[in-house]
C-alpha cells in the first residue's frame, strides 16, 4: 500500500513519526499518490460509495444501539421509542434501514461491474475473493439486523432461515440449536443476533482494509481491461479520483435520502410493524429484497435439502468465478458474445428477484399453464449455467475484438500518447 507513496515528511514531528510508524506515507500511498488508470468510468465510483455506506451504517448503528433493548419482550417497543421519543431517532433508524438497502444496491453494482470488466481475473483473484467475503458477511449482518426490531417478519424470517441449517448432514440439528440458543427462535436468539450484528460490521471493516490493500498491489482494472504500463496511462488518485468519487457519493446520497425522508417504508414490509407472535404465521414470509434472487433459487428446487444447497451454492459459486472464466480478455467491451450473456445474466437476476416474492403456483404473467415455478426453474438453470458452462466454454471459442496496445493510446491516440510521453520526459 505504501509502495506508491511519494510522501516526504517536512516537519520535525512528521519526520519523527515517519521513522517510528510510517502511517502517513501509508495513507498517502493509498489515497493520494496511488496511480489509477486514467480511463476509469463512473461504474468505478461504486467501491467508494460502498465504503461510504458502510461508514453510514456503522455510525447510525452505534447510536441506535444506545437506545435499543435486545429483549424479546421489549425490542419492538424500544424501536418505537427510538421512532417517537429519542431526539432524531426516526432519522437514525430510517437512515439505517434504508442505508442497508442502498449499501446492497452499491455492492451489487460494484460486483456486476467487476463481472462485466473481468476485474476478477489474474492478478486480482484475491481482491475478488475478499470482496465476496465482504458480501457474504454483509448478507449475514443484514439478516441479523432485520431480526432485531422483533416484528412479525423479523421473527418468521429468522425462523425460516435458521431452519435451513437442519438439512446439514449429521450436525444440522446442533447448528440450529446453537443459532437459536434453545429449541425455537426466542429471546436467546435475539440476544446472540444483536451481539453478532454489532460485531460483524467491524469484521467487514477489517476485510475492507484487506480488500483495499489487495487492490493497491495490482492497481485498478479499467474499462479496456489492459494493464496500465506507463506513467501516461495513469493519474494520481488525488485529486482526480477523490473528486470523482465524492461527486458520485453525493449523487448516491440524494437517492438514499429521498427514501429516508419521503418514502422511508417503501423497501420494508408492513408486517414488521406487527409485534412478533410465534402463534400467528404471516400469509407470505418474504425476505428483504436483496435476498430475493437467492430465495427464488431455494424455492425453485423441489427438495428442501436441494433447495438449501442451491441457495448457498448460488452464493458460493461466485467465489470460484476467477477459475471458471477461461477467457484471457478482461473487458466485455472486447467480448461481443460474453457481453450478451452478461446482460441476460443481469436481467435473469432481476427476474429471479421477482420470483422471490410471488407465489410459485401462480401463472407467470397470467399465462395459462406456465407457472412461476417452471420459469423460475429455467432462471435457476441459467444462473448456474452462466457460471459452469458459459464462462468456461465461451472463453475457449469466442472471437474477441483486438485490444489496444495501451490505455494512453486508446484514450489519446498513438500520436497523443507519444506527445504526452515526450512532454513528461521534458
Amino acid at each position, binding site marked *: 500500500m505504501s509502495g506508491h507513496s511519494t510522501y516526504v515528511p517536512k516537519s520535525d514531528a512528521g519526520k519523527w513519526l515517519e521513522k517510528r510508524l510510517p502511517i502517513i506515507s501509508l495513507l498517502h500511498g493509498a489515497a493520494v499518490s496511488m496511480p489509477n488508470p*486514467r*480511463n*476509469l*468510468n463512473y*461504474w468505478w465510483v461504486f467501491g467508494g460509495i460502498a465504503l461510504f455506506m458502510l461508514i453510514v451504517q456503522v455510525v447510525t448503528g452505534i447510536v441506535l444501539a444506545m437506545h435499543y433493548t435486545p429483549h424479546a419482550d421489549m425490542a419492538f*417497543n424500544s424501536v*418505537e421509542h427510538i*421512532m*417517537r421519543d429519542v431526539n432524531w431517532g*426516526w*432519522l437514525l433508524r*430510517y437512515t439505517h434501514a434504508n442505508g442497508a438497502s442502498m449499501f446492497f444496491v452499491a455492492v451489487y453494482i460494484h460486483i456486476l461491474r467487476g463481472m*462485466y470488466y473481468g476485474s476478477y481475473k489474474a492478478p486480482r483473484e484475491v481482491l475478488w475473493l475478499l470482496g465476496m467475503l465482504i458480501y457474504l458477511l454483509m448478507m449475514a449482518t443484514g439478516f441479523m439486523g432485520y431480526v432485531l426490531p422483533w416484528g412479525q417478519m423479523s421473527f418468521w424470517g429468522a425462523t425460516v432461515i435458521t431452519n435451513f441449517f437442519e438439512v446439514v448432514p449429521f450436525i444440522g440439528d446442533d447448528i440450529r440449536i446453537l443459532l437459536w440458543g434453545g429449541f425455537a427462535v426466542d429471546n436467546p436468539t435475539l440476544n446472540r443476533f444483536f451481539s453478532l450484528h454489532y460485531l460483524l460490521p467491524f469484521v467487514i471493516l477489517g476485510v475492507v482494509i484487506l480488500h483495499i490493500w489487495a487492490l493497491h498491489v495490482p492497481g485498478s482494472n479499467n*474499462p*479496456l481491461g489492459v494493464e496500465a504500463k506507463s506513467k501516461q496511462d495513469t*493519474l494520481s488518485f488525488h*485529486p*482526480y479520483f477523490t*473528486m*470523482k468519487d*465524492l*461527486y458520485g457519493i*453525493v*449523487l448516491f*446520497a*440524494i437517492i438514499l*435520502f*429521498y427514501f*429516508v*425522508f*419521503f*418514502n*422511508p*417504508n*417503501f423497501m420494508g414490509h*408492513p*408486517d414488521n*410493524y*406487527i409485534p412478533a407472535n410465534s402463534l400467528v404465521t404471516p*400469509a407470505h414470509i418474504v425476505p428483504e429484497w436483496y435476498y430475493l434472487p437467492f430465495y427464488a433459487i431455494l424455492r425453485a428446487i423441489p427438495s428442501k435439502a436441494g433447495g438449501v444447497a442451491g441457495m448457498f451454492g448460488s452464493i458460493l459459486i461466485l467465489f470460484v468465478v476467477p477459475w471458471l472464466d477461461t477467457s484471457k480478455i478482461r473487458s466485455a*467491451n472486447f467480448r461481443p458474445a460474453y457481453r450478451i450473456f452478461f*446482460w441476460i445474466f*443481469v*436481467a435473469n437476476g*432481476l*427476474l429471479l*428477484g*421477482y420470483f422471490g416474492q*410471488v407465489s410459485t403456483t*401462480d401463472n407467470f*404473467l*397470467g399465462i395459462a399453464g406456465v407457472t412461476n415455478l417452471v420459469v423460475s426453474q429455467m432462471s435457476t438453470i441459467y444462473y448456474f449455467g452462466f457460471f459452469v458452462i458459459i464462462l468456461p466454454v465461451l472463453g475457449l471459442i469466442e472471437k474477441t475484438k483486438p485490444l489496444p496496445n495501451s490505455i494512453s493510446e*486508446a*484514450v*489519446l491516440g498513438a500520436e*497523443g500518447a507519444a506527445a504526452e510521453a515526450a512532454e513528461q520526459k521534458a
Partner: protein
Amino acid sequence: MNNLKQNITSIVQKTALALLIATSVTGAACAAGGAIKGAPEAKYVDWSWAGVFGTFDRAQLQRGYQVYKEVCASCHSMDLIKFRNLNEAGGPEFSEAQVKTLAAEYEIEGGPDAEGEMFTRPRLPKDPFPAPFANKNAAMASNGGAFPPDLSLIAKARGHYSFKDLFMGRDGLVGGPNYVYNLLTGYEDEVPQYILDHDKEVNAKALEAYNKALVEYNEAGDNSLRKPDAPTPHNFDLGESSFNNHFSGNKISMSQPLSEDSVEYTDGTKATLEQHAEDVSTFLIWAAEPKMEERKRIGIKILLYLIILAGLMYAVKRRIWENVRH
C-alpha cells in the same frame, strides 16, 4: 475515446432496459393480483397530507381523535400513544390545557404512596391512552373470540406499497391508510352478487372437472382409476361475521363500526361515513408516523442542499479533469 463513449452509452441503455423489463414485469403481476371478478376496486384516496409538501390538517386530526375516542376505543387499544403526543408539533396540536382535560377523563393506578399503598389517580399528559381490556384474553372473550388489534401502528402494518407510490412522488405511507379507509367504508349489509357469481363459477368448474373425471373413470372400466368424489358445493357462508369488500376473505368479525352521524363533529363538518373514515385514517397514520411533518420539512432542506452540493462537486470535478483526456 469515441468507442468508449459508445460503449458506455450502450451499457446505460441496456441497464435501463433491463430495469424497465423488471419493473414492468412486477407491475403487470401486481395488476393481475387475485381479486375476485366484479369486486369493487379499493379507492386510492387523495390524502391532503400525501406528497413531498403534504402536512396534516389539525382540525382533521382532532376529528379523527374524536372518532377513535368515541367509537374505536371501546374495543381497540393504542398502547404506544401518550396524551402528551396530542399536544406535540405535527400532530392534532390540542392545547396543553385541552390535553390535561382529555387525560383526566381516565384513571390509572398510581403509587405506591409513602405508606406503600397503590391508589387510583386521574391520568396525566405523560400517561398512555387507556386500554379497553385488561389483557388479550379479556379482549377476545368480549369480542366473540376475535382479538381487536392495537391501533398505534395499524396504518403502517397493513396494505402494501406499490411502485405507483414511488414514481408518483407520493409518500410511501399512502398504502396503509388507504387500507384502513377502504376497510371502514367497505361493509355491505348483504353478501353482494359478485360473491354469489364467483361461487357459481367455482362450483360449475368443479362440477365440470368431476364429470370429466367420471367419464374417464367409466371408460377405464377397471380399478386403475379411483372413483372421483362428487364436489362439495362451495357457498359463501357469512356465519356470525360481517361482509367487507376489502377484508381478506371478505368475512370480518368486527361489525360495521362507522356510519353516517356516528360521531357528532363540533366544527360543523358533515359527519358522513366517508368523512369519518378519512378523518380516523388520517389520525391513525399520524399515530403511526408522528414525525412525518418534521421528516418532510427537514428532508426538503437536506435534498436541496445535496442537489446544490452535487452541482458544485460536478463543477470542481470538471475543472480538475479539464485538461486531462480520459
